[in-house]
């Protein structure tokens, strides 16, 4: 009996950890913030057990934490190759698609997940957002408005570094300054407002009225409703109260312009 116990202890020390043990250890490393170490361990365990859904999901989650979107997508796709309706992988790919502005793929992934798991609140919430995202706006619509004249009429504050007024579908009405990235920036702002409205709705707070977004270089103030969206960017040293006052005044004039 004693001999057997000693033998087990010795042989246990020599035994290589199983992939399941390695995934558990990686999970612990992740929970303690050692993301790179966790990712390395998962990679090693997956070499031994390449068909582990848990392992590929853990790898995807770690890539997301490390903001490695391409690698996360590969891991989610590997999960789906093993388990075609794995809900977390479908949700993960849907989130990557929405991040990349591909609303159609996002909707497709979420619809697949919900067909298999109708009670999936995360997928349902994201699908509501994706359904409202329109394709890139037709640039000919923007050209029909004289943006320069409109920008002059709404009297932008001198402190404002950038201004963008658009319809809710991201069609630009005017932009100051206007550049090659203006339409892309408008599309992102419209998407941001849509996700924020959905989040506020889920929190029981109602639709988005305004937002203050602190970035590395400036603070962006956003005002919107169902029909339109205005963003004004100010330097960090402009006080919020003053910037919000400017935002409200310009918003009022923009809405008149739109009417």
């Amino acid at each position: 009996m004693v001999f057997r116990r000693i033998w087990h202890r010795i042989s246990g020390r020599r035994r290589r950890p199983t992939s399941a043990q390695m995934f558990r250890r990686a999970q612990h490393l992740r929970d303690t913030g050692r993301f790179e170490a966790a990712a390395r361990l998962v990679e090693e365990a997956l070499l031994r057990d390449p068909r582990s859904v848990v392992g590929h999901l853990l790898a995807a989650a770690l890539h997301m934490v490390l903001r490695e979107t391409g690698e996360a997508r590969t891991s989610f796709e590997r999960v789906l190759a093993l388990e075609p309706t794995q809900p977390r992988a479908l949700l993960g790919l849907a989130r990557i698609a929405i991040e990349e502005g591909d609303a159609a793929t996002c909707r497709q992934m979420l619809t697949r997940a919900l067909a298999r798991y109708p009670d999936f609140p995360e997928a349902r919430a994201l699908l509501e957002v994706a359904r409202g995202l329109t394709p890139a706006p037709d640039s000919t619509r923007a050209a029909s408005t004289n943006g320069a004249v409109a920008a002059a009429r709404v009297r932008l504050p001198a402190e404002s570094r950038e201004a963008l007024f658009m319809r809710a579908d991201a069609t630009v009405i005017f932009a100051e300054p206007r550049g090659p990235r203006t339409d892309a920036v408008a599309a992102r702002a419209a998407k941001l407002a849509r996700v924020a409205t959905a989040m506020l709705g889920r929190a029981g707070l109602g639709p988005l009225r305004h937002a203050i977004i602190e970035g590395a270089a400036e603070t962006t103030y956003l005002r919107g409703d169902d029909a339109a969206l205005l963003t004004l960017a100010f330097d960090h040293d402009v006080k919020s109260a003053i910037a919000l006052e400017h935002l409200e005044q310009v918003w009022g004039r923009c809405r008149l312009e739109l009417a």
Partner: protein
Amino acid sequence: MSAAAAVERPALGRDLRGLLAELLRLEHVIGGLVVAPDGLVIAADLPSEIDADPLSALAATLGRELELRGPQLRRGTFPMAQFASVSGSAFLGSTPVGFIVLLGEPRADSEIIRTALRRAVGTVFRAWAG
């Protein structure tokens, strides 16, 4: 306190539940959560009528949108935002481990909450990025 106890005690920025609990003490803050970039809830303390799962999925999506907004926002730059409606505000801070979300009543002092959230984001960043 013994040295061993000091070693075992998690640094403030690593104890995300503790950090969230601190933020929830702010006046007129009615709830909050910490969500990983893949949308999984790390910690949550929300009013009973709010479902944490859909909120966390949207918060993670919104957090990533904020991170990707401009070329100046790459990994290591962590933005913060306030989204206001007539019924209150949601505050969102981005950290290396995920996103901190706070929900405030309309009468909440936005400046105070944003300052506290900015400090919390900095604490998490220092604790986890090392």
